[in-house]
């Protein structure tokens, strides 16, 4: 997911103070927690980590698709792709704002991203090699993200919930635009169809990895679910994603690159192969194909933009001083 392997810092129910118990009771009743209200430090820190990672994923996620804006094959596709990548910047902005209500500044979060202290989703460390990847990313990556984001609209933290509502509303076109590219390619020339199949082959397992490793034994996951900042287990979401995506691939006439894939009547879902988790952990550690380039691009944008941000601040200060003097 856009937030993977978030470390959760909670207290076991039997060790909770009365204040913590009352807080948990509010969440259990489905109440929203708002910025200025009391919250356990663990809840606050876990949320900062999760929302921050989600925000970082949005802005780093601009890069693999941004790659193709200047190479989009028609004016219309160019405009659509640009609008989509722009949305990702907007979504990053909404999420950073939500994190800021927890007492951390956006610039601090940027610094943590740039130093490697905070991560972003593993998926954005994979390269986009052909135009079909714009289809595959929209269809599979946004499709996987939506699985997580839709339930997160009901998360317990008010600003996060509202950011997710806005993001889900705007993102509804993203997956469809990806699928629309895949449809055009799958029904296009043989070369286009091959390109589409190749994109599916490369993005299938990285997309499955987005949900994170199986978390049935994870204590972090249990705590986050109690706090309603994680709404489903990774395995539930992965299963749902596979169940919805396989028929979409069939419609395209493309093959999911998994020979073990089979419908399981009993569980009313597909049996499918796990991704290579050792690859996932390597990517998380920084050894994915594009980790270095992605982070460098962000750091460069930030460093080279310093004079711009400072110039505007300086002017605003001068103008404010001039207004004061005039009054």
């Amino acid at each position, binding site marked *: 997911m856009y937030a993977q392997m978030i470390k959760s810092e909670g207290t076991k129910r039997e060790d909770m103070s009365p204040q913590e118990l009352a807080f948990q009771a509010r969440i259990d009743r489905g109440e929203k927690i708002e910025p200025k209200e009391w919250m356990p430090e663990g809840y606050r820190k876990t949320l900062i980590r999760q929302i921050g990672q989600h925000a970082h994923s949005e802005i780093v996620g601009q890069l693999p698709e941004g790659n193709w804006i200047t190479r989009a094959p028609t004016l219309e596709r160019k405009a659509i792709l640009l609008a989509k990548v722009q*949305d990702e910047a907007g979504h990053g*902005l909404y999420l950073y704002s939500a994190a800021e209500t927890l007492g951390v500044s956006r610039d601090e979060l940027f610094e943590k991203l740039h130093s490697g202290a905070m991560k972003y989703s593993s998926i954005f460390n994979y390269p986009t090699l052909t135009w079909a990847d714009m289809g595959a990313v929209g269809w599979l990556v946004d*499709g996987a993200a939506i699985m997580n984001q839709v339930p997160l609209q009901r998360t317990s933290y008010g600003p996060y919930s509202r950011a997710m509502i806005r993001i889900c509303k*705007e993102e509804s076109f993203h997956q*469809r635009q990806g699928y629309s590219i895949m449809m055009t390619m799958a029904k296009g020339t043989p070369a286009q169809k091959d390109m589409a199949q190749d994109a599916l082959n490369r993005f299938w397992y990285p997309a499955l990895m987005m949900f994170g490793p199986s978390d049935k034994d994870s204590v972090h996951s249990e705590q986050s679910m109690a706090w309603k900042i994680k709404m489903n287990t990774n395995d539930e979401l992965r299963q749902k994603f596979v169940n919805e995506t396989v*028929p*979409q691939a069939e*419609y395209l006439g493309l093959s999911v690159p998994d020979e073990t894939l089979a419908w399981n009547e009993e569980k009313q879902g597909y049996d499918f192969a796990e991704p290579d988790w050792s690859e996932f952990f390597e990517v998380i550690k920084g050894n994915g194909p594009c980790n270095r380039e992605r982070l460098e691009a962000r750091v460069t944008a930030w460093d080279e933009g310093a004079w711009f941000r400072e110039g*505007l601040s300086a002017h*605003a200060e001068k103008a404010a001083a001039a207004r004061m003097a005039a009054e």
Partner: protein
Amino acid sequence: MTHKQWPLWEIFIRGQHGLNHRHVGSLHAPDAEMAINNARDVYTRRKEGVSIWVVPSSEITASSPSEKGPLFDPAESKVYRHPTFFDIPEEVGKM
């Protein structure tokens, strides 16, 4: 140059239907005027608003009504922003 973050502004937008200004989110800007410009670019990409207020802590500044034309009309042609722009065959299911 000392590192200094642009202040945070809360953005309030009045939707088309003459309702109250509603809080839509926040953003960073060096001052009120730029916060309004940024709000237009960030929060009205789909023509959701006709009037913007930006609030730093206590002060409220509103965009002037005369800016209505160039500030808000343009998004009208961006129909690809809406999911229904992409026809997905029924067989594929909900997306």
